[in-house]
Structure formats: C-alpha cells, structure tokens
C-alpha cells in the first residue's frame, strides 16, 4: 500500500515537514501525453513567512509562528473562531447545515469516489472528502461541544498549531463543488465544512488568500470591482469594446449604461471586460438585436457580479450582495440578470435570497433562460453552419448542481451547433473545472501547477474524451464554458498543455456561439488564436 494511502486522521497533528505529497506517478492517467513534472519548490520567501507543512503547495498564507506564544495564539484564535461558528448569532447563515454534518455523518466514505481531487491525486487520503471534515469534527466534539467520552465516541485528535495550520490549508484543497454532498446518503456536506473552515480563518483570524480578500472582495468594495476598474474606467473600456466590435463584426451596437426604469439590469463578471471582451460585446449585440430593454449600472460593485464572499466569508458576501441589489433598486429596473459567471449566479439568486431584507428584494435570474428565449423566438436570424465544428458544454457547478439550470444552455447549443456532444457525466452530475472556489484567479507560487496537475485533471480528461472522435490538430474544437472562473481555469490548463496547437482546442462562452451564428454579423466571431 502506498504511504499516502495510510495517512491517519491523527497524522495531521504530527510535527513533520509535510503531511503528504502527490508524486507524478500517483496522478490519475488521462488520454493525453501530458508532460507533468515534479512540484516546483516553493519560493524561499513563502517558506520563510508562511506555514507550509501540508504538501507541496501553499495557498493560504498563515504567518509562521515564531515563538511558543505565537503557536498558542494560533490555536486559541482558531478555537475561539470555532466556538463562534457554532453560535446562531455569528453563524445563523449555515449553522443548521454545519451541525447536521457534524452529527450525522456515518463515515461510510460513499462520497469519496465522487471527488475529482481524490481521484486525480491517485486517491491520496488527504483528498478524501471526509478527511478534513473528520479532523474538524474531532476538534469540535472534543474542544467545543465537549461531548462526554468524545475520545471514544468520535475519535481523538491533538489540537496543536500544526493541526490548525494544516486544517486551514486543507480547506483550500477543495473546490467546494459539492459533488461529494450530492452522493451522500445522509445529506451531510463535506464541501460546506471546507467553506466553514475558511470562514473561521477569515472572519475570526483575519487570514485569507490575497486574491479573494484584499485584491478580491475588499477591492470590489473599494473601487467597485476586483479588476480595480472604477466607474469611469469601466465605462471607457466598454465604450471601446462597443467601437471595436462594431467595426469588426459590421454590426453597430451600443451598450447602455444607467438607464432608469429599464427592464433588465445585466451584471457581468467584470473580469470579462479585461480578459474576454468578446463576451461583453456578444451580450450587447444579442440584447440589442432582440430589442430588449436593458442596462448596465456604474454603481459601486454593480458592474461586477463577482461575490468572492461565497468562497470564504459570509460578511463580505452579504456586503456585496446588498450593494448589487441596492443598485437595481436605485435604477428601478424590473429584474437583475446575471451574465456568464457561475458563482455570481448562485450568490445573488440563491444564497442572497435569505439575506436581502424586504426593501432590497428585487427579482434575480440567470442569463440562460432569456438567451434561450431569444434564440428560440425567431427575432434573430441564425446560420448554424457557421458553428459547424465540434462543440462540448462544460456545466459550471454553481449553475447546474447548485441551481438546477441545465436545459436552457442545451436548447441553445442543440439549435445552433450541429456537432454538439455532451461530456460524461454532465448536468447536475458534472465535474468541477478545477478552478472552483477561487483558484481560477490564483497564480501565486506553484498554485497553477496544482490547478493543472490535480484540480483540473478530471475536467481535462472529460474534455478530451468528448472529442475522442476528432482528436489532433486537424479539427477545430470548442469547449463552451459559460462562466468566467471556469473559462479562466480552462484557458490556463489548455495553455499549460499546449492544446491549441496539439488539439486546435479553444474555449469560450455561450453568447459567443450565438453571435458566431448570427447572419447579420460578419462570419468568424470565434477565433482559434492564442488564448
């Protein structure tokens, strides 16, 4: 048996350099010649400043304790946060789900095989969905709930600084895709536990990833967007997109801003404006062509649908959702429509549903139903032959498994893409792209390596299998990934393995496919160019 497979729960507390390591030989094999190499060593600065004792990667920068007092403080702060996590006042949002997961897991491991990280890592025990939960549960039972005979009933654990640091880091070895929760016969949720641990670190200890917090949710609250674009810059950029794409496509359009009383407030992930302007332009062209009454808003946080709080912090989540709903109220629109961003969909449509107070309630919906209605309505003329290349559809977890929006996207690709083929499994049973819960925007240290070798491996296998009849550089292929985070992950993994050259493989959203088939637009909207 491999050493990693023998990892015990109590090993998490060991005074050792690393808890585990996934070597290249351990990795799940996939139908491609991937030139994977061993882990790059973490930069010296990272090793000096932060605790790096879990594996070969460092995602959560926990400052290294320099003295015994620092070590004790780390433990005490964590346990204090854990106590707060189990109070209704501090955690009314998720207490019910957390308590039931703590109490009712049968430890049957039915959830293990559903996890793409567990599979991709060659079944490394640390990636078993229940591993981090079990460490967390034992701490809870022994130190917070103080269950009589906890050692015997729930298993023992030594709560030292190593345990705390490794648990924090392990909370960032999960995509929070909830595929494991879907298979649990009891209804327990290991994904939730990863998120709750992240919350303790952020909300109590002030420790979180710079991408999600300082450069993410805090930047959004400060400038209006995690891209740092303020309202003047964002309007300028979109104006530039309008001009540029009007010229390129031969289809004159203008993106409306701050139209009071419009039917729809569309909120994009502002990252699209910088990285995928063709997505912004495509929405504007489709909505204009369909004669929809719509607008963008230039209010703080309302031109960027991201809500990174969903990944790590309830307070940051609530602040962002409230700003976005307030902007819609200020404009007096009939509804908010979310652009192609999965976590933004779930954040504002589902989670915010029981956070927004009565005066801020405004109807919120996904862009896919309205896009489907437009495509099916006959208002726009399409030539599906323009999309006559193999297309597959990636299902963003937040939109499918967590919201049940499955068919509208499929109605569109079935109508417009003659060579559409599904990945397997798909719909609510899809696999995460590997960028879920924030990693898609992380490129610190050797995080990208982790995203490629482990987190994104299963999705890459699915993509390649979907195109098994047309592999190689002779056929152009398109992965429709209607979510900014998923696109970021696919772009980086395709780039890493040189798949544009080797497979003529590109990716993009669904609106690009719609515009690519619009008769009134110059052909060739989708390009197989450098990512």
């Amino acid at each position, binding site marked *: 048996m491999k050493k990693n497979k023998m990892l015990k729960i109590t090993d998490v507390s060991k005074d050792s350099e690393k808890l585990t390591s996934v070597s290249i030989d351990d990795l799940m094999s996939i139908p491609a010649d991937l030139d994977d190499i061993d882990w790059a060593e973490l930069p010296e600065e990272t090793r000096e400043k932060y605790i790096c004792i879990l594996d070969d990667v460092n995602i959560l920068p926990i400052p290294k304790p320099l003295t015994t007092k620092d070590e004790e403080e780390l433990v005490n702060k964590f346990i204090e946060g854990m106590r707060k996590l189990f109070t209704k006042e*501090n955690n009314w949002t998720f207490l019910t789900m957390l308590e039931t997961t703590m109490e009712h897991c049968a430890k049957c491991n039915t959830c293990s095989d559903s996890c793409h990280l567990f599979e991709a890592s060659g079944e490394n025990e640390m990636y078993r969905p229940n591993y981090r939960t079990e460490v967390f549960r034992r701490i809870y039972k022994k130190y917070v709930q103080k269950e009589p005979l906890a050692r015997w009933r729930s298993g023992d654990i030594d709560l030292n600084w190593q345990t705390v640091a490794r648990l924090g880091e392990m909370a960032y070895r999960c995509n929070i895709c909830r595929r494991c929760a879907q298979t649990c016969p009891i*209804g327990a949720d290991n994904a939730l536990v990863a998120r709750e641990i992240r919350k303790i670190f952020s909300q109590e200890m002030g420790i979180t990833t710079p991408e999600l917090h300082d450069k993410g949710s805090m930047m959004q609250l400060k400038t209006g967007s995690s891209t740092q674009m303020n309202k003047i810059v964002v309007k300028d950029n979109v104006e530039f997109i309008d001009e540029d794409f009007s010229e390129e496509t031969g289809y004159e359009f203008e993106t409306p801003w701050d139209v009071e009383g419009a039917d729809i407030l569309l909120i994009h992930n502002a990252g699209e404006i910088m990285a995928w302007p063709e997505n912004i332009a495509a929405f504007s062209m489709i909505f204009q062509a369909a004669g929809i009454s719509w607008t963008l808003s230039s209010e703080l946080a309302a031109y960027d649908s991201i809500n990174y709080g969903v990944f790590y912090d309830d307070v940051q989540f609530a602040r962002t959702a409230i700003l976005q709903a307030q902007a819609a109220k200020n404009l007096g629109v009939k509804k908010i429509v979310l652009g192609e961003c999965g976590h933004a969909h779930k954040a504002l449509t589902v989670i915010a549903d029981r956070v927004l107070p009565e005066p801020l309630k405004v109807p919120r919906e996904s862009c896919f139903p309205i896009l489907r209605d437009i495509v099916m309505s006959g208002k726009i003329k399409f030539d599906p032959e323009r999309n006559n290349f193999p297309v597959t559809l990636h299902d963003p977890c937040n939109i499918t498994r967590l919201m049940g929006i499955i068919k509208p996207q499929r109605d569109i690709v079935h109508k417009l893409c003659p060579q559409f083929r599904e990945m397997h499994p798909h719909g609510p049973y899809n696999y995460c792209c590997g960028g879920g819960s924030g990693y898609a925007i992380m490129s610190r240290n050797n995080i990208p390596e982790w995203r490629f070798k482990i987190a994104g491996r299963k999705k890459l296998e699915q993509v390649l299998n979907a195109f098994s009849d047309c592999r190689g550089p002779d056929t152009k292929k398109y992965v429709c990934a209607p979510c900014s985070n998923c696109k970021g992950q696919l772009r980086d993994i395709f780039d890493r393995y040189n798949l544009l050259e080797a497979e003529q493989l590109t990716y993009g959203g669904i609106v690009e496919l719609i515009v690519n088939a619009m008769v009134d637009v110059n052909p060739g909207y989708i390009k197989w160019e450098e990512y």
Partner: protein
Amino acid sequence: MSTFIYIVTYLAIVVFVAAVLRRIIHYLKNPIHVRWELYPVPHEGKKASYGGSYLEDSGWWEQERKTSLVGTLKAMIPEMLFLKAVWENNRPLWVVTFPFHFGLYITVGFIGLLGLTAIIQLSGIDVAGSHRLKPVVALISFLGPLGFILTIMGAIGLLYKRLTDPGLRNYANFEHYFNLCLFITTMGVAVLTWLFVDPTFNLARQFLVNLISLKMTAIGSFLFQLQVLLAMFTIAYIPLTHMSHFFMKWFLYHDIRWGDEPNINTPETDKKIGIVLNYPVTWSASHISGHGKETWAEVATFNPAAESEKGKE
C-alpha cells in the same frame, strides 16, 4: 426482576421519545439558514428527471410555484427502503448495509404488527387461537426471524468491512464497533429466544399486553428477559448517536438539500430574515470588528474599504 424489566422498558421508551424530540426541537429552534439546495430536487416535477429547476424559466417569480409530491415520493421511497444513494455510489458497501437496514425495517414492522395483535388481544380476542388472525400470526412468525437474521448478517458484514477496508477503518472509532456489536448481540439473543423460548412470539405479545395495560406480571425465562433488556437499551441508545440520521435525514433532505423555496410572497421568511439581521456579530477580524457596528444589518451595510479610503482623504 420482572418489575425491573417493565420499568426499564418504560424508561427506554421515554428516553427514545425524549431524545428524538430533543433533536427535532433543537433543529427547529435554529434560526433561518440560507438556501443551500442541491439538484436534482425531486419535487421540481418533470424538470427533476434531468436535474432542472424553476430557475430555468425567465420570470420564474411570476409563475405559480408547483411542487410534485409524486416526484418527492419517487425519490424518497427508493432512498428510504433500498438505500438508493449507496446502491449508486458505493455498491460494495450496499451489499452489507442494505441487509442491515432492511433487517431493521422488517424488525420494526414485526414489532408494529405484534403491538397491533397485543391491542386486539386486550379487546378480548384470543389472537393465538383465532382462525381469522392466523395469516397475521404467521406473518409475524415469518417477519421476526427474517428481520433479526438480516440485521445480524448486515451488521457482521459492516463489521468485517470496517475492520478490513483501510479507508473505512481510518474513520471508525470505538462507537462504530460498539454499535455493530450491540446489534449483533441484541439480534443474536432475539434469534435464540425465538428458537428456544418463544417460537410463536406469544410470550412477546403477552409482554406487550402487560406493558400496555400497566400490569407488571412476571414473564418468561432469563433469555427472554435478557432480550427485552438488550432491545430496550438499543432503542434508547440509537437516537443518542449519529444513528439518529434515521429520522433527521428527513430534515437534511427536505429542508436543506431540497429546500429551494424562494422568498417570494413569503412574509414569514422576511420576518425571520429581519430577526437574524438583528443578531449581534462578534467576529474579530479587522474587516468586521472595530468599526462600532454590532448587528448583522449594521455590519453588512458598512463598507470598510470605502471608509478606509475616506480616512486617507
């Protein structure tokens, strides 16, 4: 000794009911939680077949919300009776956990039928001698041993898996082994009692008659008394452990996993949100504390980034 057995039985029933109620009340007393549903949600009717939801329709809040009870039952019954999720996702475990659970269901059905015949007996009818009740008595005689034996087989299988599968062993603790041994012992003694003391379950029925009519008349042999004691301990013990999932699963599925009720025309939900937004927040991180904001409403409508920018001006 007989009186003791009756007292233990009454006490066990009280502990069972109290423990079940305590868990349910604790759950219900928790404040409103955010929506955290997982699809497929079976009450979504036709859409449930592919995992779809009402969110697939533009203007969904203007439509009448329809939920399908048939859909819910179609998902619930195979899950409850046949452990469908384990069948689909963990077949090797299903082979042992299904007989265990199904054996317990049959045992519960057996006790229910036995109780029913005890009530009939109390009304003056001689159940054992009644010609018309013969099929029921025969069914009881069949279900009892079947339930006991299936449970034992399942429990031994589970114990074997826990001991031999490294993945499962890593997560098992003393309580898991104790629970399985408890079931094997209790059901084992039940089989012995059936074989050697009470093959018709007439004694067991008489015990239930006495129990219902509050008569603590002396009963049976040592083996029978041991069986009652073990069974009562098990009944009282189950809801005190993680095995309380047998009833809490209802909430985990209906309220959390399938809890997709939108906050549209639901003043009750708005009221509950109003309550939680006034809860005090004591998280210590600097983006939350230290700004003089105390409640969720205050903290969530405060923008620390904008404030710190103002401070710099």
